[in-house]
């Protein structure tokens, strides 16, 4: 049986972060972009908790708890903005957001 160590947690966290970034860059739907952003934060949470568990310091878990709370606040505001935008345009495709340019 394989032993699961710190490096495995970090690999999963790194993969999650990369997936989140890819989702932000490649997706054209505002909701999916938003999902990618939350994945980034959760990748950080996973790394923090893993470091905390294997390093023996509790501060990482404290920060992870704060990040969860902050992510919730961010979702509340972010979804409000996306809903307001949807009401105006009846679309969530980010390609349409091109009215601001020089």
């Amino acid at each position, binding site marked *: 049986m394989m032993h699961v160590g710190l490096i495995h947690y970090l690999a999963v*966290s790194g993969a999650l*972060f990369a997936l*989140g970034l890819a989702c*932000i860059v490649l997706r054209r739907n*505002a909701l999916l*972009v*938003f999902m990618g*952003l939350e994945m*980034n*934060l959760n*990748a*950080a*949470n996973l*790394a*923090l908790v893993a*470091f*905390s568990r294997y*390093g*023996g*310091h509790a*501060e*990482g878990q*404290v*920060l992870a708890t*704060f*990040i969860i709370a*902050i992510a919730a*606040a*961010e979702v509340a*505001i*972010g979804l409000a*903005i*996306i809903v*307001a*935008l949807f009401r*105006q*345009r009846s679309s969530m495709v*980010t390609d349409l*957001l091109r*009215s*601001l*340019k*020089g």
Partner: protein
Amino acid sequence: MEFYALQMEIATVVLAVIGLLAGAFWPKHVSLIRRGLAEGALLVVLASLFLAFPQHHAFFGDTFVLDRFAIFFKQILLGTAALVLLLADAHGPLRRQGGAEFSALVLLAAAGMMLLASANDFIFLFVALELVTITFYVLNSFLRGEARALEAGLKYLVLGALSAGFMAYGLAYIFGATGSLNFDAIHHALHGDKLPQGVYAFGFGMVLLGLGFKMAMVPMQIWAPDVYQGAPTPAAAFLASGSKIAGFAVLLRLIFADLLPTAWEAQPVLLMALAAITLLYGAVGGLAQTDLKRLLGYSSITNAGFLLLGIAAGGDVGHAAVIYYLVQYLFAVLAVFAVLTVVANASDTADRATLAGLHRRSPLLALALLLAMLSLAGIPPLGGALGKFFLLLAVLLRARVDPAFYALAGVAVAGAVIALCYYLRVLRGAWADPAPDAATRIVVPWTVRVVLFICMAGMLVLGVWPQPLLNWALHCLH
């Protein structure tokens, strides 16, 4: 009572809550409430000049420090917020939307920035930073009936949340490398021999990316032009002044706490490259712009580049120059946004034609715009000239030991010359272009007059009499 250390922040939050409640109970007197909040914030700043702050240094388990540097930045940031509140009261679209929420949110963002100036722990720093960022999501998309404001809000949201993700991920690796998130503990760990330097440098780089969003530093600068153009003018003014100042205050704090990866201090190639690219990106990108608020977005990027010069050069001269530059930049940029708040009152957009014949329609606004643009361009005898001079001085001093800095100084001069072109073009629009036939005199509300007089006085005083602020900045550093 440790909570005495938080007196300025507590006063600010109490003001915001009073504003929210008063706005809900007396909706007919909202304008009065908004002005009351601005005056209240100014009063807190004045009171803080005379109030005794606790003598000892660190609070709440070393997560919060209260030194001269922190108090100085708290006063600057709350003062900025007060001026922005005065602008918000004069801003047409915000008045039509009604309510005191915008003002209350500006104060809450200011409270977050003031906490940032004191942060001595990455958990504290992250929470305070997100208080500012999340409040700005709302401020930028506050005019929710307008497509432009919502688009600006969404763009700021995506980039802001991305920067938060970078920062959180970087913090995880800093924590992994050092086993702590407290600045003092990390400082000790950095000088131990067991530290994995590469892991720490990676984490710090990610944190720098997250901060770069606040400072409008390449590669996290892409939001600036769009958001400045689409957001309500007072919100953009607060982004350009308060948010940027808070970002640089945090960066300076990280440097004072001696948290830069050791490899970066000996060879600041990365910081130098960031400074040069940021500076040139803003200068070149601004050349083709016709919308003034968008132009200010690029100007904000250029100025972030200039400020990074001082950070890269380092030393007491470099850091004092950064503080000096931040203060003079604050006056100049607030003056421009104050002018735009009034001129573009009806539509909240500002292409160059809106400024045509400004010197006939309102001599006061034209004069303020003239001083602010010359100061931003770095022409004596205004604050901007000395700010750029001190930064270049710091770079040249460093160049005596590290010749690569001569190249950086060359880039800075080139960037300043390119930026000069677009600042002067704005002035030509305001002073030389004939006013359209339908143009009438512009009435400047007294709230904006106050802001303009404070800003003009600030630019002129800093331009001819820099010693007090410079001495104070050096004093703050020790």
